[in-house]
C-alpha cells in the first residue's frame, strides 16, 4: 500500500529535523494566517486559478523568493562547515548531509530561483511591452507555473520524507545510477527537474508564439524593446535545449527504475554520454539564465541615462550570436573527460569566441551612458555592480576556456568562484535591477532608495568577501564539494568567505526591510501616472498597476521606444475614442489540479506506490479532458465596464 515508504523515511539527524520542522511550521503559519484573514476563496479565485500573466508573474516571484531563502540557508550551512572543518575537526555536518546540501543548493538556485525570477519578470513585462493583453496561451501559462511549483515541492518534501540526492545538481552518472545511489534521493532530484522542465518548455513555446504573433500594430521585430528580443532569443534556447535534458534524465530514470544500461559502468553502458548530453543542455541553460538579465539592463540603462540605447542593431545581433554560439561550446564543461586535443581545441576556441558578442553588449551599455544625463537610482547601482563583477567573472571564464589551464582548475573552487561571479553579478544583480525598476508598475509605489543602496553595497562587498577567496583557494588546489580538508593554510580564506556570506545575508535583510518600509511609506512614493521613471517603453503607458486587460485600446507604434515617442510627439492623441468590448480568457482550476496530480504521480513513482501513480495519471488525463470540453473558456468585458475602469485610473 505504501510501497517503499516506511517510518525510516521520516528519521533524520537533528539538523535535518530542525530544517524540516521549521519548514512545516512555516507552512502551517501561512495556512493559519490565510484562514484567520478569511482569504482562501480570494486566493483561489484571484490567484491560484488566474490565467492573467501579471498574477502568474507575481506568483513565480513569491515562490522564487521562498526558494531563495532555502538556497541561502544551504549556502550558509556550507560556508559554516568549511570554516571549521579543518584537520582534526570534522565540522557539524555529516558527509551525506553535506552532499545533499550542495546538491539542493544548486538545484534550488538554478531551477527554482534564477529561472523562477526571470520567468516571473518576463511574465509580468513581456505582454505589456509588445502592446498585448496577455500571452498567446494563458491556460498553458498557468499550467507552466503549477508544474514549476510541483517540481519545487520535490525538493521541499525531501526535507521531511526521505532524503534529497547527494549526487550534485548535475547528477553525474554512474554515481547517480541505481547501483551507487539506490535510495530515493536521486529520484526526488529527477522528478524535480523533469516536471519543472516540462513547465519551462511550455513557457518557452508560449513566449515565442506571443512575441511572433501578438505584437501590436506597427511593432516590427526591429522596433521591439531589447528586453523582448532577449526574451525571444532565450526562449529559442529553452525550446531547443530543454528536450536534451529531458532525454538525458529520462534515460537515467529508466536506468534507475527499469535497470537499463545506458549510463551504467557495466553491461556496455557509457556514463560519459550522460555528461555529454547534460552539458549540451547545460550550456544553453546558463545563457537562458543570463540573457534576460542582459535584456533588463538594456531597458534600464537608457532610461537612467536619459539617452536612447546605443547600437540597437548590434545588440540584437549580439543576442542572436550568443544564442547560436551557446550551442557549440558545451564540451568546455568536461575538457578533462578524455577527448583528444582536436576536440578540446575546437570547443576551447568557440568558448573564447562567445566572449566577443558579450563584450559588444557591455560596450554598448557603456556608450549609452556616455554623454547621457545619468540618474544614479538603485537600478543603476545594480547595473554598475554588474559591469564590475560580471566582467571579472567573464574573464575567469575565458581563462578556463583554454583546455590546458582548465586542466588545472577544473572542479576546483576557482570554477565555483567563476560561476557564482557571473550568476550573482549577472543574473541576480540583473533581477534586482529589474525588480526595483518595475516594482512601482505592479504595486503603485516605488521602493525605498536608501535601503536599496544599503542592500546593494552589502551584496557587492559580501560577494567579494565570499568569493574572491575561492579564486585563490582554487589556485591553491582546493577542490569543490569538500566537507573537510587538511590544509590549515586554507582556513583563513574560508573564514573570510564565511564573513562574506553573513554580509550577503545582511543585504537580503535590507531588501526585506526595504519592502516593509516601502509599504509603510507608500503614500509618499506613490506612482501617480504610471510612469515614475520617465520610461521609454509601452508598459509605462499603462496605469500602476495596470488594469487586468492591460490596454483599453491596442497601441499602435511607429518607432522604437514607442512610449517615449508618444510622450514627445507633436501629434495629439485623439481625445475621444470609442471603447470596445474586450475579449478575455476565464480563470481555470485545471492548471493547479494537473500540477498537483503531477506531484502525486512523481511521488508515487519514487516510493513505488503504484496505485497512486495510476490514479494520479488518470486524474491528469481527466483534467485535460475537462479542460478541452469546457463550453465557454472566455468572456467579454463590456465596453462600459472598460470605460469605468479607465476613467477611475485616469481621472
Amino acid at each position, binding site marked *: 500500500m505504501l510501497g517503499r515508504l516506511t517510518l525510516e523515511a521520516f528519521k533524520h539527524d537533528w539538523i535535518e529535523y530542525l530544517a524540516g520542522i521549521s519548514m512545516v511550521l512555516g507552512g502551517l503559519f501561512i495556512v493559519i494566517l490565510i484562514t484567520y484573514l478569511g482569504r482562501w476563496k480570494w486566493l483561489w479565485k484571484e490567484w491560484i486559478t488566474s490565467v492573467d500573466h501579471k498574477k502568474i508573474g507575481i506568483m513565480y516571484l513569491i515562490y522564487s523568493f521562498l526558494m531563495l531563502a532555502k538556497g541561502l540557508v544551504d549556502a550558509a550551512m556550507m560556508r559554516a562547515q568549511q570554516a571549521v572543518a579543518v584537520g582534526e575537526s570534522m565540522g557539524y555536518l555529516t558527509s551525506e548531509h553535506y552532499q545533499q546540501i550542495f546538491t539542493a543548493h544548486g538545484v534550488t538556485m538554478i531551477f527554482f530561483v534564477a529561472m523562477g525570477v526571470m520567468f516571473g519578470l518576463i511574465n509580468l513585462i513581456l505582454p505589456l511591452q509588445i502592446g498585448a493583453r496577455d500571452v*498567446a*496561451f494563458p491556460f498553458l501559462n498557468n499550467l507552466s507555473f503549477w508544474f514549476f511549483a510541483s517540481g519545487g515541492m520535490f525538493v521541499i518534501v525531501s526535507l521531511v520524507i526521505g532524503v534529497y540526492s547527494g549526487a550534485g545538481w548535475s547528477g553525474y552518472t554512474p554515481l547517480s545510477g541505481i547501483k551507487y545511489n539506490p535510495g530515493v534521493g536521486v529520484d526526488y532530484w529527477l522528478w524535480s527537474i523533469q516536471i519543472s522542465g516540462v513547465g519551462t*518548455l511550455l513557457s*518557452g*513555446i*508560449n513566449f*515565442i*508564439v506571443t512575441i*511572433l*504573433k*501578438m*505584437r*501590436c*500594430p*506597427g*511593432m*516590427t*521585430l526591429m522596433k521591439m524593446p531589447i528586453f523582448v528580443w532577449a526574451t525571444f532569443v532565450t526562449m529559442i534556447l529553452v*525550446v*531547443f535545449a*530543454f*528536450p*536534451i535534458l*529531458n*532525454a*538525458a534524465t*529520462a*534515460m537515467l530514470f*529508466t*536506468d534507475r527504475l*527499469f*535497470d*537499463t*544500461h*545506458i549510463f*551504467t559502468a557495466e*553491461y*556496455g*553502458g*557509457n556514463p560519459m*554520454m550522460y555528461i555529454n*548530453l547534460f552539458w*549540451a543542455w547545460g550550456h544553453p541553460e546558463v545563457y537562458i539564465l543570463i540573457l534576460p538579465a542582459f535584456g533588463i539592463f538594456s531597458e534600464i540603462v537608457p532610461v537612467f541615462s536619459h539617452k536612447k540605447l546605443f547600437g540597437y542593431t548590434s545588440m540584437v545581433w549580439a543576442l542572436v550570436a550568443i544564442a547560436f554560439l551557446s550551442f557549440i561550446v558545451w564540451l568546455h564543461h568536461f575538457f578533462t573527460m578524455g577527448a583528444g586535443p582536436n576536440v578540446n581545441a575546437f570547443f576551447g576556441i568557440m568558448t573564447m569566441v562567445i566572449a566577443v558578442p558579450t563584450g559588444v553588449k557591455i560596450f554598448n551599455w557603456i556608450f549609452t551612458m556616455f554623454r547621457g544625463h545619468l540618474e544614479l537610482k538603485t537600478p543603476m547601482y545594480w547595473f554598475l555592480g554588474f559591469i564590475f563583477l560580471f566582467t571579472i567573472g567573464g574573464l575567469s571564464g575565458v581563462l578556463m576556456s583554454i583546455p590546458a589551464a582548465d586542466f588545472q582548475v577544473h572542479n576546483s573552487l576557482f570554477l565555483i568562484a567563476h560561476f557564482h561571479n557571473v550568476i550573482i553579478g549577472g543574473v541576480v544583480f540583473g533581477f534586482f535591477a529589474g525588480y526595483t525598476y518595475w516594482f512601482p508598475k505592479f504595486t503603485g509605489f516605488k521602493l525605498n532608495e536608501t535601503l536599496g543602496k544599503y542592500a546593494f553595497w552589502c551584496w557587492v562587498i559580501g560577494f567579494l568577501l565570499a568569493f574572491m577567496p575561492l579564486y585563490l583557494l582554487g589556485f591553491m588546489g582546493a577542490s569543490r564539494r569538500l566537507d573537510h580538508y587538511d590544509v590549515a593554510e586554507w582556513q583563513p580564506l574560508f573564514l573570510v568567505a564565511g564573513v562574506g556570506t553573513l554580509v550577503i545575508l545582511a543585504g537580503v535583510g535590507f531588501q526585506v526591510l526595504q519592502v516593509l518600509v516601502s509599504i509603510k511609506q507608500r503614500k509618499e512614493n506613490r506612482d501617480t501616472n504610471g510612469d515614475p521613471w520617465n520610461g521609454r517603453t509601452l508598459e509605462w503607458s499603462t496605469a500602476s498597476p495596470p488594469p487586468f486587460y492591460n490596454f483599453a485600446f*491596442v497601441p*499602435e507604434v511607429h518607432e522604437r521606444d514607442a512610449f517615449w515617442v508618444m510622450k514627445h510627439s507633436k501629434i495629439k492623441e485623439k481625445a475621444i475614442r470609442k471603447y470596445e468590448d474586450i*475579449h478575455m480568457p476565464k480563470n481555470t482550476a485545471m492548471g493547479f489540479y494537473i500540477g498537483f496530480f503531477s506531484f502525486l504521480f512523481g511521488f508515487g513513482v519514487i516510493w513505488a506506490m503504484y496505485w497512486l501513480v495510476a490514479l494520479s495519471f488518470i486524474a491528469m*488525463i481527466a483534467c485535460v*479532458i475537462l479542460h*478541452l*470540453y469546457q463550453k465557454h473558456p*472566455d468572456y467579454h468585458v463590456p465596453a462600459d465596464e472598460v470605460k469605468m475602469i479607465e476613467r477611475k485610473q485616469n481621472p
Partner: protein
Amino acid sequence: MKASPTTAHETYPDTHHDAYSKTIFGFWIYLMGDLIFFGALFATYTVLNESTFGGPTARELFNLPYTLIQSLVLLFASFMAGLGGTAAHRKEKGRTLLFFSSTFVLGSLFLGMEINEFARLIAAGNRWDQSAFLSSYFTVVATLGVHVIFGLLWVPILLIPVLLEKSLSHVSIRRLTCLKMFWQFVNIIWIFIFSLVYLLGVG
C-alpha cells in the same frame, strides 16, 4: 475567436494572430522540440548500439519483413490522419470521423505489433537490461510507442465532441489539425527508426 476588429488589423506585423494560427504554430514548435528529444535518444543509440556485452546483435535479433509491415501500417495510419485533417477543414464530418477512426485502428495495430516484438525479444531472454545496445534500442522504440499511445488516447477525446456537434466547429478543426500533425510527426520519427535502427542494424 476572431481577430480584434480594428482597422489597424492590416498593420499588425503578423496578420495571422488568430487562435488557429497561434495554436498550430505553437504545436509546431512543440514538435520541433520533440524532434530534438528524439535526436538525443538517437545519438545515444548510435553511441551504444555496438555494446552488446557479448550478447546477440541487431542482425541476429531483428525481423526485417515484420518491421517492414509495421512501417507500412504506421504510414497508412498517419495517411489516414492526413485525410482526416483535410476532411475536417472541408467540414466533411462523416469522412472526418471515418478517417480518424482508421488512424485509431491502424495505430493500435502498429502498437500491437510493437508490443508483440518486445514480448518475443523478452521471452528469448533479450530484455532491455541485458546490454547497453538492448537498453538503447528499447528506449528509442518504446518512446515512440508511448507517443503512439498518447496519439491513440487523443483520437476518441477529439472525435466524441465531433460526433455530438452538428457541424465541425472552429475549435474541433483546430484540435484535429494538431492531432493530424502529431500522427504525421510520429511517422516521420519512425522513418528514422526503421532506417537507422532496423535496416542499418541488419545491414
